[in-house]
């Protein structure tokens, strides 16, 4: 889901950085000092998740864990996404530094949205089936929303990217389903073994 360097226009990059500054400022204000180490733990998982490749036919993609991040970190998710993406760009060459703001918005906004839409419902849900369905929906929505934001950025850069945007959305459908399943299992395990993570 990382947008590479040299694709987006200057205007879109600026919008990305503006969104990132706003999101990180908001996130830092909402960060609970007692949960900073937990935030670092989740940020590390997100940082490493990009190395887990999922084979889909002749192609492959990697996990994002956007929904688990959003459900665990809530409104403090943006700083965790920014730090992980910065280190992915510097250490693994994913994305880039100029496009870091745009990529943070592409992944931070869905994680934040999922926490706001599903966070409370997942916390209060009791039945395993209900938790699984809600978590699956959160995981699927987060990936498709991220692909949608990336698509809008590409389209804003150049209307000729319309074909690539369609491909981007279609290519993310299987990824969204896989993320939904992973999110469902992870959240069910957390509800049972470490419910304080979702509090």
């Amino acid at each position: 889901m990382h947008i590479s360097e040299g694709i987006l226009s200057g205007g879109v990059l600026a919008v990305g950085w503006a969104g990132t500054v706003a999101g990180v400022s908001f996130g830092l204000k909402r960060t609970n000092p007692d949960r900073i180490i937990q935030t670092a733990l989740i940020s590390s998982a997100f940082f490493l998740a990009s190395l887990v490749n999922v084979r889909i036919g002749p192609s492959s993609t990697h996990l994002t864990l956007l929904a688990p991040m959003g459900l665990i970190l809530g409104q403090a998710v943006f700083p965790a996404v920014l730090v992980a993406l910065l280190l992915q760009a510097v250490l693994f060459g994913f994305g880039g530094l100029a496009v870091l703001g745009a990529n943070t918005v592409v992944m931070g906004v869905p994680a934040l949205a999922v926490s706001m839409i599903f966070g409370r419902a997942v916390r209060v849900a009791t039945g395993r089936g209900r938790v699984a369905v809600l978590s699956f929906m959160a995981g699927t929505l987060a990936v498709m929303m991220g692909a949608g934001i990336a698509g809008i950025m590409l389209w804003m850069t150049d209307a000729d990217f319309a074909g690539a945007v369609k491909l981007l959305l279609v290519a993310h459908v299987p990824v969204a389903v896989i993320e939904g399943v992973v999110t469902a299992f992870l959240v069910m395990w957390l509800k049972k073994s470490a419910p304080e993570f979702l509090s």
Partner: protein
Amino acid sequence: MRGKIFVSLVFMAGLTLLLTDEIFAHGTGYRHSGFRAVALEFMYSTGEAMSYREARVFSPSDEKFAYQSGRTDEAGRFAFVPDRAGMWRVIVRDEEGHQCTAEIEVTAETLAGGSQSQDTGTILHGRELLLRGMLGISLIFNIALIIRRRHAH
């Protein structure tokens, strides 16, 4: 009547013979080319091949319209035959927005048949990947500790 049919058949046969070259001109064929191709391998920074990805080649003389376009093969390989010396760009990208741009300096010697091998990408494997991953996690926790200390003060 028979005479007319005979004349018509002779006329059609003659016309067919006249058009034979024209018909053969629409056929196809192949031959081994002596031109030197530039062959590249594209991969993600984890070392995984960029299989079946869209590839576009831009010549030094026209950076706007692609000289050639196609897809990489399963192993992430793509080849093209340059027709002039200069800096050639090959852009390979996937549906998720990952993009790799290779800049290849084609010299007159290469065009004449010399060999060319460049390694411009960064491939991370096993140990290096592990070290970078550990460094990243260490940095994340150090940043977290700095933020926590600031909050404590």
